[in-house]
């Protein structure tokens, strides 16, 4: 985390983390702002960690949600956050794509937010039913001629790699762990990630 969180921000985020119980929350509430914001004690550090877990989850969902564009001026995407942050993410995407209605679908329901909405709407209706109720929005007609193939991104991604600068250590540092187990991606075995059996057979 590169910026200093204020006390009210930390308290707001703690409420979204199930690891933080009411007693801990009230202790943090009573803590003075200087100690909390500058991580002067173990509890302050723990509060920062819980808050940053929520922030990381928000960041992750913002980064990983990929949208499809409907002709009705709707951007719809699916996400799977571990913490309840969909409403914050929907508001963020609305800020980013101000002309569009944003529909986010997760295991907690479907979240809708867009122009002229006062708050994020959460519904348990399936995404298709929600989509059919939204008609064309003014200002989005110009985007109808966009028709980018999914392979365009793949081509861009592949074009950016410089083989002479191959740096797998940095690559795995940037890549989330769960994607390191995908088929075709193997982690090179070093001293610390080798099992005893592998040492024996080597």
């Amino acid at each position, binding site marked *: 985390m590169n910026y200093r969180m204020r006390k009210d921000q930390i308290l707001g985020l703690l409420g979204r983390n199930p690891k933080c119980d009411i007693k801990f929350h009230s202790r943090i509430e009573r803590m003075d702002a200087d100690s909390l914001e500058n991580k*002067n004690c173990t509890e302050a550090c723990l509060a920062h960690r819980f808050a940053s877990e929520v922030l990381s989850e*928000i960041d992750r969902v913002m*980064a990983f949600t990929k949208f499809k564009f409907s002709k009705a001026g709707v951007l719809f995407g699916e996400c799977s956050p571990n913490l309840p942050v969909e409403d914050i993410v929907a508001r963020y995407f609305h800020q*980013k794509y101000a002309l569009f209605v944003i529909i986010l679908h997760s295991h907690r329901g479907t979240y809708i937010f867009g122009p002229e909405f006062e708050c994020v709407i959460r519904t348990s209706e399936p995404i298709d039913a929600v989509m059919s109720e939204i008609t064309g929005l003014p200002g989005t007609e110009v985007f109808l001629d966009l028709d980018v*193939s999914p392979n*365009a991104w793949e081509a861009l991604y592949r074009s*950016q790699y410089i083989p002479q600068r191959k740096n797998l250590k940095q690559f795995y540092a940037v890549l989330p762990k769960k994607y390191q187990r995908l088929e075709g991606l193997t982690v090179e075995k070093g001293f610390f990630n080798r099992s005893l059996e592998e040492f024996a057979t080597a």
Partner: protein
Amino acid sequence: MGFSATENKIRILGSSSKYDICQSSSCGSGPRPDRGPIGAASSFGVCKSATPDGRTVCLLKTLLTNKCIHDCKYCENSAPGPRAEFEPQELARLFMGLYLQNRVEGLFLSSAVCGDADRTAERMIEAVSLVRNKYQFGGYVHLKVLPGMSYEYVKQMSELADRMSINIEAPSHQQLSEIAPNKDLSNDIIKRQDAIREFDSKGALSAGQTTQLIVGAADESDSDILKMMEWQYKNQNLKRIYFSAFGPCPNTPMSGKKATPLSREHRLYQTDWLLRVYKMPVKEITGALGEDGNLPNADPKTVLAVNGGLKPVDVNSAQYRELLRVPGIGPQSASRILALRRAQKRITSYKELHNIGVVLKRATPFIKVNGWTQARLIA
């Protein structure tokens, strides 16, 4: 136009632009209110997809064309190979499509000089105008200025871009002429930088001006680069300088030259950080240089502290500038220590310093806690 043609162009032109270094859009100071409602230039971005070289892809980084009149000895565009050119409309549609899918967070557009710098600039401006005006995109756009481009086109670009840059490539006239015989440092590059600085000072560029340098192509020393960095930051008001370690491209006149070690690039970035963020004067940083004028392969801040015989400082009484000189204490940790001091809280243990964010393995020989210091450097 079919997808395969566009994809082929991405493959060719994206690959030609991969040596250009740029940051994500988060470096912008915020979207300008006069720009469109689509796009955020200063907040969380998209998923930064990692490539096996450890860099990430988060911008549509491409050239408009890779047909070039220059014959720079190091450049991939001067070698024989496939050539392509985007149509402005095609590029604008591709970018907006990827942006709405949340795959990229901005546009980085550069180009080789095809026939005439002004003609190429005109097409670059046309593409970005479409993105800005037709699709109302208010997010991050980084435009490369081409050597030899007219002042009028630089002005037009500054009205559309958040960040502009022109590659300086080498630290001196002579060194540039060795690797790029057609380019003149003063006329082709510095004059364009002056123009960009002029528009930047009027507030046209929210993310300012940058430049890029190829390290090791012209056999320059780190001392030459440091001098150039100081001059650039002082006179051109740059946001930052990017370094790219030279790697030989096949079928170019410099294909036989040895590649520059990536560690040299890393040490230059660390030095740049001392200059730009810590505001350390160059005179002081030159203390880290070896006899051959190059940086040793070690953290320059630690080298400076060891060479300069830095005495241990008391964390409860040292000033901000004194704390900043300590390896392992950065601006954020230093300001946290001062904030605690203002709140009448004394630091009494290494654990507290660790919680604050101080890197103890580097800092301990240079700090005193409770009047006690550890004399050995663990790093």
